[in-house]
C-alpha cells in the first residue's frame, strides 16, 4: 500500500517539474505583453525620465525578457519571489499569510458542497428511478446557471441585509486577533480555547463557504446521479436485492461507495473551478485570501505578485491531482496490487 502511494507521489512530482517551468514561462511572457507601464504608479509626479530608468533598473525591468525570466526563476528556486510593486513587501510571505484563508474557505466550501450534493444526487437518482426526473433535471439546470459569485450577492442580500443574521465581511469578528498557529482561523481559535472568537470565525466563514458550495454542488449532483444510474445495472445491486436488502440500504451502503470513484475524479478535475469560485467569493466577502490578493494585484498591475500567485495556484492544482491519485489508489481495491 505504502509503496503504491509513494510511487504515485514520486511520478507526479517528476511530471510536475516541467509543467511548473512551462506554466511560469507562459505567465511571464503574457505579463510582459502588458500595454501600460506597471511602474508608472510608483513614481512621484515630479519624476524625471532618469528617475524612471533608475527604478526600472533597480527592479530589473530593464533587462531583456528571457534574462528577466531566468533571474526570476533562479530567485524563485531560492524561495525569493521578488518584491510586490504595490505592497512594497516580498511576494512569498505576503502570499503565504493569505494562503490559509483560501484553503479554509475552499475546504469548507467543498465540505458543504458534499453535504448538499450527496443527498441531492441520491434524490436525483431516486426521482429518475420513479420517472419523475423532469423536475430534478430542471432544478439541477437552474442551480447550474447560478455561479458562486451570484450566490454570494444573493446570500448577502438575504442573510446580511434583508434578514441580517450573519456577517458578510472579513474573516473574524471585530477586535479578534488570530493566534497564528496553523493559520486556519477555525482551528487556531479552538486550539487556544477562545470559543466566542471561534464562533465569530465560524459565522464569518458560513456565507462565503455556502456561496462556493452552491456553485459547485450541481456538478457533483450530476456526476453522482449518472454514476448511480450506471451502478444500478451492476450484478451486485441485483444480488443485494435478492438478499432482501431495502432499496435505501442498497443505495446508501453499496452503490454510493462505487459512485464515489468517478465523483472523486470529477472533483479533482474541477478543483480549478472551486479555486476560481473562491477567488470571486473572497473578493465579494472581503475574505483576506489569495484570491482577494490576486484581484488587487491585477487591478494594480502588480506583476511580481501576479506571477507569484499564478505559481501558487499551479502548485495547489498539482497537489490536488496527487491527492486525488492517492485517494483513488486507497479507495479502489482493484488498484492496490501494483
Amino acid at each position, binding site marked *: 500500500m505504502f509503496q503504491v502511494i509513494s510511487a504515485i507521489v514520486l511520478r507526479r512530482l517528476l511530471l510536475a517539474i516541467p509543467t511548473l517551468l512551462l506554466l511560469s514561462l507562459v505567465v511571464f511572457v503574457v505579463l510582459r505583453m*502588458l500595454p501600460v507601464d506597471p511602474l508608472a504608479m510608483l513614481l512621484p509626479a515630479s519624476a524625471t525620465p532618469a528617475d524612471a530608468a533608475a527604478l526600472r533598473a533597480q527592479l530589473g525591468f530593464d533587462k531583456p525578457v528571457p534574462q528577466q525570466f531566468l533571474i526570476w526563476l533562479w530567485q524563485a528556486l531560492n524561495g525569493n519571489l521578488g518584491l510586490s510593486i504595490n505592497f512594497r513587501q516580498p511576494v512569498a510571505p505576503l502570499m503565504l499569510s493569505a494562503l490559509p484563508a483560501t484553503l479554509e474557505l475552499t475546504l469548507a466550501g467543498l465540505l458543504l458542497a458534499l453535504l448538499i450534493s450527496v443527498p441531492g444526487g441520491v434524490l436525483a437518482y431516486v426521482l429518475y428511478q420513479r420517472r419523475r426526473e423532469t423536475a430534478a433535471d430542471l432544478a439541477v439546470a437552474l442551480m447550474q*446557471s447560478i455561479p458562486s459569485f*451570484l450566490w454570494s*450577492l444573493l446570500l448577502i442580500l438575504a442573510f446580511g*441585509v434583508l434578514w441580517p443574521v450573519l456577517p458578510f465581511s472579513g474573516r473574524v469578528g471585530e477586535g479578534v486577533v488570530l493566534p497564528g498557529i496553523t493559520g486556519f482561523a477555525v482551528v487556531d481559535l479552538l486550539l487556544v480555547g477562545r470559543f466566542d472568537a471561534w464562533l465569530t470565525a465560524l459565522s464569518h466563514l458560513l456565507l462565503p463557504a455556502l456561496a462556493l458550495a452552491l456553485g459547485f454542488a450541481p456538478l457533483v449532483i*450530476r456526476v453522482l446521479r449518472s454514476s448511480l444510474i450506471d451502478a444500478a445495472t451492476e450484478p451486485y445491486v441485483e444480488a443485494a436485492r435478492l438478499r432482501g436488502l431495502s432499496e435505501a440500504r442498497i443505495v446508501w451502503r453499496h452503490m454510493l461507495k462505487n459512485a464515489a470513484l468517478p465523483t472523486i475524479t*470529477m472533483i479533482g478535475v474541477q478543483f480549478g473551478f472551486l479555486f476560481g469560485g473562491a*477567488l470571486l467569493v473572497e473578493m465579494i466577502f472581503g475574505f483576506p485570501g489569495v484570491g482577494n490578493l490576486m*484581484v488587487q494585484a491585477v*487591478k494594480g498591475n502588480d506583476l511580481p505578485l501576479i506571477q507569484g500567485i499564478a505559481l501558487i495556484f499551479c502548485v495547489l492544482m498539482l497537489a490536488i491531482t496527487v491527492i486525488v491519485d492517492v485517494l483513488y489508489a486507497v479507495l479502489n481495491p482493484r488498484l492496490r496490487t501494483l
Partner: protein
Amino acid sequence: MTATAMTSSPAPTAAPSFALTRSALRQLGRQPRVWVGGGILLAVLLLAVLAPWVAPHDPLEQDLLHMLTPPMWAPGGDAAFPLGTDGLGRCVLSRAIYGARVALTVAIVAALGSMLLGSTLAMLGGYFGGVVDRGIGYVVDLWMSFPPVVLSLILLVGLGTGVDKVILAVVLVDWTRFCRVIRADVLVTRRRDYVLAAQLLGFGHLRTMLREVLPAVVPLMITLFSIEMGIAIVVEATLSFIGLSVPAQVTTWGQMLADGRSDMQSAAWVMLVPVACIIVTVLGCNLFGDGIRVALDPRLRLRSE
C-alpha cells in the same frame, strides 16, 4: 464545467452523413428543453438587437430627480421606469436590455472562437494521432493546471481591457473544453468503417476530416457551443463586475451588479434585475445545449424516455 460531466457520458453516435437530419430535427422538436432554452435565447437576442426601439430610456441617461425609484408595482414606483432606477437615476430596465448586447456579443463570438480553435486542434490531434496528438494533449493538460478564472485574469492583464480583449481571453482559456471532449469523439469516429472506406478510396486527409469525420461530431459541437455561451456570459459579467472588462460608458450586466451591490441596503431591485438576467440567459444556454445532447444521442434518449 458541464463539459466534464459530458466526457463521462457516452459520446453521441451521430450518423455519418446528414441523411438523418430530418429525424434528428424531429427528435429536437420533441425535446421541451430545446424549446424552452431556444425560446429564452431567441427572446434575449431579439431584445439585444432591438434595444434602441424596445428600451424606454437611454441606458446612460441620468434622471437626478428619480434616484433609486422602486419598480412600478411597488409603492412609490413610477410607470416611466418599469423596473425602477439605480443610484444615478438611470432606468434599470433599459440598462438590462442594453446589457444583453454586450453579454450576447461576448457569448456568441467567444463561443464561436473557442469552438473553432478547440475543434480544429481536436480534429488534428484525434485524426493524425501520434506526436501531433500528444503535443496538443500536453498543452491541454498544461492549460488545465490553472484555474480558468486565474488564467483569464492573467490574460486580461497582458491584453488590456475592452470587450474584444474579454472575448480573446475567453477563447484562449476555454478552447480546451472543446478540444478534450471532441478529440475523444474524433478518436472513435476515425476508426469507423466508413472513414476507413473513404481513406481506402483515396480521399485526402482534409476531405476525409471535413466530409466524413466532422459531420459525426457536429451535434457534440453544437451542445458544447451552447454551454460555452453560458460560461462566456458568466465570465464577462464577472470581469465587468470586478471592473476589468469594459469602459464605464458601455452598459453591462456585471457593471449593474457592481452598482446594485453598493445600493443593496436601500434598493435591492437594482442588483436583482441583472442577477435575474444572467441566470435566465445562462439557463437558456444550458437547457438548449442539454436538450440537443439528449435529442441527438440515442443512448441518452432511451434513458430519458
